[in-house]
């Protein structure tokens, strides 16, 4: 899914940092040596003072998938500075998903992944082949625990589990952050490790094998590991800058077991299909830079840029501008967001294989997510505070709407039989989310 709720940003630079710096100048060693005040955890029961952030999202792609996604996040900041975050998400996706085959002038019949003829489907001439029985329920749970080690060092460990009927994923992560320069600078280092188990219906296909031969093996898995190095700097009292770089590497069965690629003859007629075949390693490097500026009591902006490249030939750029505008004595706010995204295609991306090349093609995938495209997202969030309810005497209702539009960039020379067909249908999607935080 392209649209995902973004994590909440850390609180903007506060007067407190300035005050800490001023206190240090006045008190010298006393302020520097003194640790952050530490209260014994006895002053509130474990079950008290949790804050709850809940949301229900509805996602709809034009004529394809729709999803309903409830999200619950509960968190608690303990008296001694420790923090615990727990979250759970349930996704229910249904609809039809492109199987990778090319639109054709003829009807195309596909078997179900399990091979059962009763679940096969036929795509009409001129239509994009989609598997209409796409139905997936996903449940995901995550936990993150942050503990201050010293006044200036913080350790955070967490894990995530995600389960679908044909996919299981487990991730663990750990990071350490160190504050220095009167807490105006934070350096962080994080590692994560992911294990994914694929249990596709009917087994995982042999990459590049003929779709008609139905050559499938059992279950497959993949592993990923990554490191992240981050730097956050308070530039002025109203300006916070954050920079980080990360590298991650995946190994194992990296194919989508349900994606196939059409084989066509020189005239453009489909002569068969192959399961996609991706390399069994992928290394991604990315850099991210974000600047948040509070212009006045009402308006703050965030501008972020991300650059990513991998050894499959995919390079992507993301730019996002985000406004936070408080209204009515800060009881309400609106957040308009615009995001621009562009990526180049993987080296082995191809919308179809010519039958003369079929035997020599090492890697191929027609998965549009590996193609060259650009996308724009427009979002608007409106939130209103309600006083006198919730654990902090205040709760917040919000509504968020996002519109996503994807357009393909590269077009291959098209054989005669395919001319006039829309081989590169873009994607339009809408996300509506209502949230309640208390």
């Amino acid at each position, binding site marked *: 899914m392209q649209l995902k709720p973004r994590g909440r940003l850390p*609180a*903007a630079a*506060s*007067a*407190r940092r*300035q*005050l*800490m*710096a*001023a*206190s240090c*100048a*006045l*008190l010298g*060693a*006393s*302020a520097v*040596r*003194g*640790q*952050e*005040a*530490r*209260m*014994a955890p*006895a*002053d509130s029961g474990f079950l008290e003072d949790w804050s709850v952030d809940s949301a229900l999202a509805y996602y709809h792609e034009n004529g394809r998938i729709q999803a309903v996604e409830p999200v619950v996040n509960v968190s608690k900041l303990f*008296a*001694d500075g420790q923090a615990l975050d727990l979250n759970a998400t349930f996704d229910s996706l249904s609809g039809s998903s492109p199987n990778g085959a090319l639109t054709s002038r003829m009807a195309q019949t596909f078997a179900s992944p399990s091979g059962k003829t009763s679940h096969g489907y036929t795509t009409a001439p001129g239509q994009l082949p989609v598997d209409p029985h796409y139905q997936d329920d996903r449940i995901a749970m995550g936990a993150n625990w942050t503990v201050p080690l010293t*006044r200036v060092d913080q350790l955070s460990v967490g894990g995530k589990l995600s389960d679908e009927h044909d996919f299981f994923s487990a991730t663990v992560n750990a990071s350490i952050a160190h504050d220095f320069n009167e807490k105006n600078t934070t350096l962080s280092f994080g590692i994560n490790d992911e294990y994914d188990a694929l249990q596709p219906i009917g087994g995982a296909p042999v990459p590049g094998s003929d779709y008609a031969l139905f050559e499938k093996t059992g279950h497959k898995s993949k592993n990923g590991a990554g490191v992240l190095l981050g730097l956050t700097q308070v530039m002025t*009292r109203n300006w916070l800058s954050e920079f980080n770089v990360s590298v991650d590497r995946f190994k194992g069965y990296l194919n989508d077991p349900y994606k196939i690629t059409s084989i066509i003859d020189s005239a453009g007629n489909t002569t068969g299909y192959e399961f996609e075949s991706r390399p069994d390693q992928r290394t991604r490097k990315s850099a991210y830079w974000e600047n948040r500026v509070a212009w006045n009591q009402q308006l703050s902006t965030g501008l972020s840029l991300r650059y990513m490249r991998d050894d499959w030939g995919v390079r992507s750029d993301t730019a996002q501008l985000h406004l936070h505008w408080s209204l009515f004595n*800060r009881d309400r706010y609106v957040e308009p967001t615009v995001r621009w995204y562009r990526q180049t295609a993987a080296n082995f991306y191809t919308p179809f294989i010519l039958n003369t090349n079929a035997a020599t093609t090492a890697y191929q995938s027609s998965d549009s997510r590996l193609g060259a495209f650009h996308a724009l997202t427009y979002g608007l969030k409106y939130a209103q505070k309600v006083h006198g309810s919730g654990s*902090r*005497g205040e709760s917040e209702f919000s509504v968020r709407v996002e519109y996503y539009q994807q357009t393909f960039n590269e077009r291959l020379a098209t054989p005669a039989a395919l001319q006039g067909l829309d081989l590169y249908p873009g994607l339009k999607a809408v996300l509506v989310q209502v949230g309640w935080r208390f």
Partner: protein
Amino acid sequence: MEARGENLLAVCFTAMASPCELLLPSGEEKAALNLGMLVAQEARRIEKKFSRYRDDSVTAWIHENRGVRIEVDAETASLIDFARQCFDLSEGLFDVTSGVLRHAWRFDGSDRVPEADAIRRLMPLVGFDKLRWQSPHLYLPAGMELDFGGVGKEYAVDRAYDLLAACRSAAFLINFGGDLRANRSLSHGPWQVGIERPDADRQATMILDLEHGALATSGDSRRYLMKDGVRYGHILDPRTGWPVAHAPRSVTVAASSCTEAGLLSTLALLHGARAREFLEEQSVRYWLLE
């Protein structure tokens, strides 16, 4: 020196018009008196140096030399520097020159609310940006006053803490009139600190368990004026000269130093109805009574 329960020993004295104490684990009677002397001396040194009620203080000397450029000592300079930073970061809400307003406002529980004119006449004398400060040189214009009372007690706690921390690693807690700082937990658990809070017309005590760090409390207490059913609290907004409306009755903040905790609790009061919001933004531990 007196025993506090089974486990604690207190050395008590009075300074800065407040009851002050040094708390130590019991069994240290011998050391207690010397350490207590050290703390009391430091408290009285700072009181003598910065009190606005004494005519031999640095504050009095600064006031005698209004209208001329003077050179202040290093400690005074660092306090003025601190005051300027607090003035800047609070956008004028915390202002050591606001003491002049006391000539108009007397919070004695009466209904003598000053004339708007009296306040208007004083306002040109309020504002840190009106004095000239280039450390260590100070030029205080005629009529203006400097008052370190808003930060003096907390500063004294931190200074005394430093003296003690340099010669002692075992647990201790310094408490000057409710503003306090501890270096570590007692062997049998955290310090149980009772914070007196003005709760309507009775005195409520809230017990907090402190392991280490500082707590400071600022309150609207019982100092106010009442006229035509309107309560005028004693927290004055230096930008208007009038009391801050809807200030909480009491704010306690935990921070690493007492000075920082004190500033945060004072600034919270000055934010009036937005005190809680201000504290949330600072992401500090706080206890607020409205």
